[in-house]
């Protein structure tokens, strides 16, 4: 528990010492359960099937962006362009639904992946910090979306059928949620069981060592940002199908929310620690809080504050400090 050179144990740690031995993620899970209990006690409707599906739906979309985002963050970088990518993807999808039908989905995903690839290329080849790269490219993607359509695009009613493939339900569960589960499994396997995933972790924890050990850091960085673009593209597609619409500011709010979910889950902004599983918990915490506040009827003026305080409490209790030698 003790860190190099860090003398006293903070109070939180001492309390935690008593339940030590549990894997760190269990605190986050415990936190999640606690919130669920509080909201369930606060309102009888919180645990209804309808509301669970609502939470699941919004969590699935946030999960897709955050899954991508976490790869950018694991390398020690950040992806501020997920919002722009989501928006662009949504516009492309709406624009091409009618002529292309289901193929529009593939086209939209390809656009998002290409956007992520571009980020990775600029970041690694020209050695420009990802903060600047993706901040800049976010603007570029938004402008492209504006060029495609200035007006918000809505799905033509003729293509509701195609949209309902993503937006419909299977055996009473929203397809978007099923998609969320698939995306989670995919990213989980990539992080844990592929060499690329391992190399991303290595790069995040010691870049120079990775380079000296023969890791192709250009390639790995590019892949990480491409994955981030892929996650954002998936989220864009899900959201656009969900809202039957696409417009150039659709994804903006997901930039900060995706980063927040990643960090709440316990992934360090410095890279190399945390990952996909943590992010799942972070996303669930965010989604449950957001929904629960409405369900138990927190005054709207107070909601923003309530969210802030809850997030602080959640992280204070559940953040896994044992993996990090410094908390920045």
């Amino acid at each position, binding site marked *: *528990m*003790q860190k*190099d*050179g860090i*003398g*006293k144990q903070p109070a939180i740690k001492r309390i935690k010492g008593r339940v*030590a031995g549990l894997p760190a993620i269990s605190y986050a899970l415990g936190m999640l359960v606690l919130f669920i209990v509080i909201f369930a006690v606060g309102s009888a409707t919180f645990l209804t099937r309808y509301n669970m599906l609502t939470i699941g739906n919004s969590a699935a979309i946030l999960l897709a962006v955050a899954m991508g985002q976490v790869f950018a963050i694991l390398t020690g970088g950040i992806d501020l362009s997920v919002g722009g990518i989501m928006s662009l993807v949504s516009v492309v999808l709406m624009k091409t639904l009618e002529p292309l039908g289901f193929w529009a989905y593939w086209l939209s995903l390809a656009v998002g992946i290409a956007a992520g690839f571009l980020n990775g290329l600029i970041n690694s080849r020209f050695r420009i910090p990802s903060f600047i790269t993706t901040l800049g490219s976010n603007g570029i993607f938004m402008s492209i979306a504006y060029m495609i359509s200035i007006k918000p695009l809505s799905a033509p009613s003729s293509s509701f059928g195609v949209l309902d493939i993503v937006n419909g339900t299977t055996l009473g569960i929203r397809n978007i949620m099923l998609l969320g589960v698939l995306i989670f499994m995919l990213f989980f*396997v990539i992080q*844990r*069981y*592929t*060499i690329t995933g*391992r*190399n991303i*972790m*290595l790069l995040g*924890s*010691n870049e*120079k*060592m*990775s*380079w*000296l*050990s*023969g*890791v*192709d850091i250009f390639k790995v960085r590019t892949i990480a940002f491409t994955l981030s673009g892929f996650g954002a593209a998936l989220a864009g597609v899900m959201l656009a199908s969900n809202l039957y619409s696409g417009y150039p500011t659709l994804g903006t709010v997901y930039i900060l929310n995706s980063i927040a979910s990643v960090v709440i889950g316990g992934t360090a902004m410095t890279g*190399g*620690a945390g990952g996909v599983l943590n992010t799942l918990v972070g996303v669930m915490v965010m989604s449950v809080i957001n929904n629960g506040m409405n369900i138990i009827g927190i005054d709207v003026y107070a909601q923003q504050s309530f969210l802030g305080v809850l997030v602080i409490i959640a992280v204070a209790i559940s953040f896994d400090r044992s*993996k*990090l*030698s410094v908390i920045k």
Partner: protein
Amino acid sequence: MEKKKIIEFKGIRKVFPGVVALKGFDLAIYEKEILGLVGENGAGKSTLMKIMTGNYQPDGGQFLLRGQPIVLGGSMEAIEHGIGMVFQEGSILPNLTVTENLFLCHEKEFSKGWFISESAMVAEARKALEENGLDINPTTLCGNLSPAQRQMVEITRLLWLSRLYRHENPILILDEPTTVLLEKEIKTLFEILNRIKEHATVILISHRLEEIIENSDRIVVLKDGDYVTEMPGKAADIFKIEQLMVGRDMVEGYYRRNEQVDPTDTVVLEVKDLAIESILEPISFTLHKGEILALVGLIGSGKEELVKCLGGSMQATQGSIYRNGKRISIKQPKHAIAHAIGYIPIDRRIEGLATDLDIADNINMLVYKKLKSRGFINKRKERDNANHWMGVVKVKATSHRMKCGNLSGGNQQKVVLGKWLSADAEILIVDHPTRGIDVGAKDEIYHHIRQLAKQGKSMIIMCDTLEEDIGLCNRMLILKDGKKVNEVSCPPDAKPAPTDIIESIV
């Protein structure tokens, strides 16, 4: 001559999750002595010292300073009580200048009112550096210094501090200070230490037993977090100490000479006229299958740069490299690795290890391809590979999932070695294979190097001591001022004498 006790440990215990680092340790330290502290990697030496400086709090027992029980809150408090330490991991901040590092936390000595006088600081820094025979510009960023220079800056800081607080008898702790130093600097360091011993206590930790014996007044041996024994310095017997540390008799025969095999005739690597502008003049040599080639030369001889070119972290300005007769180009480390050339850098903590990841992640990183089954990395294979290599290099840890940052300094080195030994390199370039590693494990590593040679792997080594170079290698290249000056063959039965070699080095 009765010396006064200045420090006393009584039953000091320190427990980390899963490890008892110190098991009720008792020791007294006296005024005006150089105390040598030796023990295996992970024996608890650094932990004990960090308790002395207040960086760790003991979980039990008592720490008496000048007869008084005391609890220190951190380095700064320790310094005020006259205890200063040079840490094994180094504590120089790369983004600050030499001056800023030297006087970090003591800027008030140079303040006029609220403001610090930069010029006074630089002047004092220059003086302090000169006193220790260092030719370093006080305004350079420490990130640009060599590891040796950084270490000397730290020692300078310590010496300056001990003077600042004017304690009757300051206590200076040096945790493996010589691992990154050059011969000349080591000599200067010990001259200084022997001089200040007149009014100070010096605690010295090192795995180079020769220098411990030569310079200590008293040697204390630790094993598994416990005090084993102590003996007077100068007369101590190196074999006895080794035996005490390791707990068994060391295999006779230095450097496993008896296991040395003759290389085959197959040339696996040929270097032709390789040169680096203003560092290395065109050099040519060959490396055979199963051969151990030692590169010997002083700093500035160009040997470090030469191997960096082979490893891909530096670029030669001319010349060519042939691998199995085919010309290859190495622009980046990954190219070298693609040609089965592995380079183990000397600055292992920074360049070799991901301290926030666990042992298995570090050991396995080069061989993930072999750990896959059905396209995905297999957890069981991962565990087995990590455990195998941890055994070979004798890493002392609770499990293969222990975070590398929590390992002792020597064990971190071993992890890096294990990682590279496990890699399928046909040619291994090892910059100081046994640096910071205890005698028991050293022997194991010699054995392993011999095994690799027997399997037909070739190696280029640069060792801690000339004796080690001579003992390990089949052949030796001697470099001087960027030129190859000599080539000496070292068969097991006719090793040259170090004195003969030194002539061509200097």
